[in-house]
């Protein structure tokens, strides 16, 4: 008896829980607009004919030329059924087609409109309507492609542009690329005396690093020295990063004479970076009030490991006359080498001549030990082939290196305070 009660209780519980679960299961609706004018016209003709057959005195609120909007319900088992059809006239008024008439129409015609085997469109797309940029945004998604092209890659065949950088695409996938300095690390063009050149694709860059220098309008600043090395960079819409090394041992003893300051040379032996990124829409269209033109804003948040090595150039006799081998005397510790990364990139939407008129990027590198800098780049594209750029970089605190006097007869501990300072780099951009 007890068992029977228990079974009854379990059965009841299972029934109630099933009903409860079913009541919370979602049903769906699909809504679309019929874009096939021929199909739409034939459907409306059939509808009007059926309506006249049922009631020849009926007042006609719809026309054969009306645009049709279909709503189909989806039940919990995934079966579809026609819910409603609306006809939209030239006045913009929506008229619901009578269910009784639809039920009386040829079943094949109803099946056809429900099957969506014709040219159609999402309702949201039609309601938003409009231009090229809106096509993407009717789905409430923002492709980051434009802003990535503006800073990481390029949609042009030849792009001699922002950083300054040079991209020559040999085919749609590959480009030969050259970039002065390491803007991704917060040391662009003039702030890092390197030229990174090699192969670039939409997802990665594989560069050889060479010592080089670039124009800087502020002569009192102290850039990073450069030597030979390698860089590997990655970027995808959601995350990216880089890894690099440079080594003074690859330089000959005469190469060091090109150092800006052979007696006190700081360089970056190794770096690693990782960031997460996402892109949002920002700004307002040209016909609406607003300061920022409509475009894409990409944010990058991550961290950078960037080691700094300090050394001096002296010859075998220990004389610092600007010639000889580079001798490393100190390097930044783990804490001094860690930086928080925050980068913002903005590109206005491509106009009808396929260029982004305004591009801007700001990057903050916050060292855990207080050292850090801010980098800002802006670019204004005048016409399809010409633009102007300005890059500003400022480091707010010096980095201090401690080392034993390289003179073997002395035992004193010395300090060198490296102040990178302020960098101003204007450039011209050419596109082909």
């Amino acid at each position, binding site marked *: 008896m007890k068992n029977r009660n228990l079974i009854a209780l379990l059965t009841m519980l299972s029934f109630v829980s099933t009903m409860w679960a079913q009541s919370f299961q979602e049903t769906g609706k699909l809504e679309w607009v019929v874009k096939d004018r021929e199909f739409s016209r034939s459907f409306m003709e059939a509808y009007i004919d059926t309506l006249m057959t049922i009631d020849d005195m009926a007042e006609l609120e719809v026309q054969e030329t009306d645009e049709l909007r279909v709503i189909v319900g989806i039940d919990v088992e995934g079966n579809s059924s026609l819910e409603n059809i609306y006809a939209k006239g030239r006045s913009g008024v929506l008229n619901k087609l009578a269910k009784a008439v639809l039920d009386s129409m040829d079943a094949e015609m109803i099946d056809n409109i429900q099957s969506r085997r014709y040219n159609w469109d999402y309702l949201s797309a039609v309601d938003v309507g409009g231009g090229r940029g809106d096509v993407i945004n009717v789905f409430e998604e923002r492709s980051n492609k434009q802003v990535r092209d503006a800073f990481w890659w390029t949609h042009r065949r030849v792009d001699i542009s922002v950083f300054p950088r040079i991209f020559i695409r040999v085919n749609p*996938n590959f480009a030969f690329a050259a970039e002065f300095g390491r803007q991704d690390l917060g040391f662009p063009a003039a702030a890092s005396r390197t030229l990174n050149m090699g192969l670039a694709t939409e997802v990665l860059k594989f560069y050889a690093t060479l010592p080089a220098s670039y124009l800087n309008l502020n002569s009192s600043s102290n850039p990073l020295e450069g030597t030979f090395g390698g860089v590997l960079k990655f970027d995808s819409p959601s995350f990216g990063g*880089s*890894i*690099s090394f440079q080594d003074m041992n690859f330089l000959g003893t005469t190469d060091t004479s090109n150092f800006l300051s052979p007696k006190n040379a700081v360089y970056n032996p190794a770096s690693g970076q990782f960031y997460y990124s996402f892109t949002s829409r920002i700004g307002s269209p040209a016909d609406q009030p607003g300061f920022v033109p409509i475009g894409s804003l990409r944010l990058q948040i991550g961290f950078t490991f960037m080691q700094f090595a300090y050394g001096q150039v002296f010859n075998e006799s220990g004389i610092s006359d600007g010639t000889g081998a580079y001798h490393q005397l100190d390097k930044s510790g783990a804490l001094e080498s860690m930086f928080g990364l925050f980068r913002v990139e903005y590109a206005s939407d491509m106009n009808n001549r396929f260029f982004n008129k305004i591009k801007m990027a700001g990057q903050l590198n916050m060292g855990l030990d207080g050292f850090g800098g801010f980098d800002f780049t802006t670019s204004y594209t005048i016409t399809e082939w010409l633009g102007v750029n300005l890059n500003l970089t400022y480091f707010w605190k010096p980095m201090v290196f401690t080392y034993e006097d390289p003179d073997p007869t002395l035992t004193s501990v010395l300090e060198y305070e490296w102040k990178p300072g302020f960098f101003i780099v204007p450039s011209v951009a050419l596109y082909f």
Partner: protein
Amino acid sequence: MMNTNIRKAILVTLGLIISLSSVLAQPKAPPMLDPRRFDAWTVEYEPFRLLIENAVEEYITLNDTELLPIASTDNVIAVRSKSGQRQLYQIRYGTASDGYIVIDNMEVRWVLGSTLAQTISEKETYYHLDTQEPYETKTHRPEVEYLEVETFWTHTDLQIGTDRLVYLFGKSGGLTVEWGSELFGRPYGEAGFARFGVITPIFKLGLQVPSPSIALGYRAGAETDEYLTGGIGGFGAFKYKVLYGELFFQSLEPALAEGSFIHSYDLGGLMNLSFNTTLSGIKISEKKSLFAGAMQIRLGAVIARVDHSKIVNDRVLFQNLKRTYNVATGDTTDEFKNGDAASLEESGLFFRVDYASTLIGKRFPRHEATFQVSGPSIMTKYVYNVSHTLGIPLTVLLYTKDNEWSPSAAILVGFKLRLDQN
């Protein structure tokens, strides 16, 4: 003497492989689509991919169709006509192993709707990767795809092995842990380092840290107890179409190193080009062919520098980073002096052949084999896959340079587990 013999052996093996590949390589079937007339790319931008997935599901709901829903592991390929209005011509989805479902011509617009079809056709406005898939032959492709994917990335949700662990958190990203570096000729504990990072089908990036020096087998020669010591650093690698590149650097952390005289990788780089071919094999019965499957050949160069440090009282007393260093023949002493330079002995030619036998159930090959020359390291590896889940690798290493941080040879064993979420 030994080096001359090894050199001869390599040359003979190379000759054999090249002639075998030309004999056994299958003639390519005509292309499925003409690349001069069509552009093809994979839709990598996740929101757009989801919109296509939704549209296909809706179409299946509304119609009695043979189309299947798009699986999360499928590639979604869009094809656009190069002529006329540059409209979307096809959508293909699936994998090379399971084949592709094709939605084309008018049906593309029926499935996607006007705006979505137009949006997908404008590949210049979103993240995509160009693909050769619709242009290539269908025959025997699964083995090639297996080698292409498994040598860098994986299709398995969780892969745990003695060489690497990969955990995928989606179709396009995952976490990776690697022990040693097979491509640098030092698998498992032979490299002295382990790697932790993120991985995508195209690149991986992360941190490099010291790892325990454990021999997963037998080491032969005079320096059987000597290992390279790992340091703290970073690594990055990519595989983009036929090109592979890798860089790493590390610096010695005295607190994590054992002993006074330390040999440690300082930096390394690798670049190679790959070539895939299918093998029809030698027919031994009606249904079986010997050596049928696919082969991948890679050729390039490897550069790796080993520096020598003396550690006193947990501090690096000196570290030698100059480039021109050679250990005298027969010199096996641990001691070196300040001024001795780092070694580039680990650098040289990179050559690798990977073979995978015919896939069982379109999922895994029973046999996998590798022959690799990476600088002074010659590696032969065989993997017997007991099932899709379990594989047993056996590695034989031979080092052609006598130095203080390498054994003469080693035989190493491991395991590989592949687990998929249900």
